[in-house]
């Protein structure tokens, strides 16, 4: 009995996140309450159908047509039960909606009809990989119509739309066995291939295993040394010539992703608007004046220094200590990508 009870009569998918036990508990609670009332109502109905079926010469018995006590009891008892259900739903919902602050963040992009996940190192990948027992926050947006992100095994779902970020979090508790995965589904109708807008969610047993996957997911690792040289000479041409290598992107594209995901965009615009920090638009090659250093042209070294040691040079007109250091939070290749991105930002024009 407890086995069946704990398993929701086998109706639910595997429990693979921290939400699953609570959601399933309330599912079971509601299920058994429902079964009780259904059996009560239908059982009585069937009993009456047999016992009081019409028989010749037997008329219906005149019984009272009203009973306040009965009416009140079948108003009050269900009321108490639904209050309990509401409380259960409320509690699990708030757990699902309050994002943890120390979570691992992954960007999700939905478009007709594919998912794409952007990891903190700028890698874009069509599959979702997460480490076990680590809270993960997904920040999601859509390129086009509404989509909805759903992982049944985690009991999470959230709509994804254009023009607004939506968030969702979970903490996986059950690593997916080798070669297997949890399905990721789109549940908001989005057109022709809505039903094939699915992908895999792989839960890695350890953080190290996940990090290893993430490093290996870098498509540049798949290139031969000759190919890599070719790529460095002209990234765009190389990408165009090798459509079979998934996920390749030019350094500038990756820089743009990093600008988006690493928080640069909070202060540095790319269209000339003045923010907490200077806009990157048209900045390349300009000479900057500092309150604590001689004027310097914006070049590779200056950009790198500004990222890892932002207080070395305080740009005039901006707060000297507004920017935190990115030392240790960014790799050299990522810095190179950002430099490549800044180079593409011509004065006054918007980067595409």
């Amino acid at each position, binding site marked *: 009995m407890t086995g069946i009870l704990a398993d929701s009569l086998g109706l639910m998918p595997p429990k693979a996140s921290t939400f699953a036990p609570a959601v399933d508990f309330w599912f079971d609670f509601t299920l058994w309450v429902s079964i009780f009332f259904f059996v009560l109502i239908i059982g009585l109905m069937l009993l009456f159908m047999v016992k009081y079926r019409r028989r010749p010469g037997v008329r219906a018995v005149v019984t009272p047509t009203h009973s306040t006590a009965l009416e009140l009891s079948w108003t009050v008892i269900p009321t108490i039960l639904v209050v309990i259900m509401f409380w259960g739903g409320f509690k699990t919902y708030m757990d699902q909606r309050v994002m943890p602050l120390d979570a691992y963040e992954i960007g999700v992009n939905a478009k007709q009809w594919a998912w794409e996940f952007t990891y903190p190192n700028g890698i874009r990948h069509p599959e979702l990989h997460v480490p076990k027992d680590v809270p993960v926050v997904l920040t999601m*947006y859509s*390129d086009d119509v509404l989509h909805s992100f759903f992982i049944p095994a985690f009991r999470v779902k959230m709509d994804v739309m254009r023009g607004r970020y939506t968030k969702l979090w979970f903490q996986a508790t059950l690593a997916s066995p080798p070669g297997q995965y949890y399905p990721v589904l789109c549940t908001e109708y989005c057109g022709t291939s809505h039903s094939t807008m699915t992908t895999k969610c792989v839960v890695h047993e350890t953080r190290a295993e996940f990090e290893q996957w993430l490093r290996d997911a870098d498509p540049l690792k798949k290139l031969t040394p000759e190919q890599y040289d070719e790529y460095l000479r002209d990234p765009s041409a190389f990408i165009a010539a090798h459509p079979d290598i998934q996920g390749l992107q030019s350094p500038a594209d990756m820089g743009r992703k990093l600008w988006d995901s690493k928080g640069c965009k909070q*202060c540095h615009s790319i269209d000339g608007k*003045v923010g907490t920090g200077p806009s990157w638009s048209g900045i390349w090659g300009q000479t900057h004046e500092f309150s604590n250093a001689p004027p310097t042209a914006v070049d590779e070294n200056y950009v790198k220094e500004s990222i890892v040691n932002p207080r070395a040079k305080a740009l005039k007109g*901006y*707060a000297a200590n*507004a920017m935190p250091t990115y030392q240790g939070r960014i790799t050299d290749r990522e810095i190179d990508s950002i430099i490549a991105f800044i180079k593409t930002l011509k004065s006054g024009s918007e980067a*595409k």
Partner: protein
Amino acid sequence: MQMADAAHPISHAAVPHGDAHGHGHHPNLEHHFDSLTQQFDAGKLGMWLFLATEVLLFGGLFCAYAIFRRNHPEVFMYAHQYLDTTWGAINTVVLLVSSFTMAWAVTASQRGQRNLTSLLLALTFLGGVGFMVIKAIEYQHKFHDGLMWGTHYDPSKHGHGHGEGHGAAAHGAAAAAGHAAAGDGRGGAAESHAAGAAASAGAAGDHGASAAHPEATTSVHAPETPGQGASAAAADADVPPERAPLEPSQVALAPSGPAGLHVGGHDLHGPRPDNVHWFFGVYFTMTGLHGLHVLAGMAVIGWLFVRSVRGDFSADYFTPVDLGGLYWHLVDLIWIFLFPLLYLIH
């Protein structure tokens, strides 16, 4: 039945005066009513219910107005300046006068004053015509200046005068200031408010203020809306999604300072905020739907006029005039709300 007559003059034509089963009652008493009073009461209740549906129809639009104005007050503050308050006020007076003549027509028909009723109905009809003509003039100005909705909003067509010159000047100045903006200065909401205060001195001051404080054009507007309203995405179709607004929580997580969004300042005569087309979307939808209702009301009044001239109404039977009057008052009433909400924003 009268209800049907009033709201749907066409359906009347099919079968005049019920099925005429010859109950020997008053000729205007439908066969399924016991008395004229019952018939009148039913008609009146029906009309009030119909008016309730009309209020709810517009209620949806008023809700949309409220939501967007709460989320983008600067758009409304800025764009309403393009509306011509004079024409709007004249139109309000025209409608109020027509409401008065309608009310008088109802009284006259109750007293059986047939000629007076016809005259007053004709005047009411003319009021409707006047309103629509003025509305057409206003619309034509907007079309001419490219002050339209959504993707059709193209104020670059603007700048031909039409009494909205100072708006154009402010816009021009703002654009110029935007180009002149050097990478200097830390934009701040407080400063942009100061610029706005200076600007309220007049158009000339506006130029000066904008030029002196270029950061006014780039002042930031951190989305203060919780959750759903915060969708001030870019105006161009091809803007990448990175430029979509952030959730408040993300703003809070930013290292420091406000998020650099492109929603502009909101001084009264100041620079053009983004998504101004919004206001005109609201404006055209609300006044357009109202205009359709005025036209429907005019059709009803025209039909009442014909019946009145024909001598259908008397001191015992004036239900259609009464119900038509109710409808016309509702049309007026909606305008009484639209006028301040669209023209008189402060």
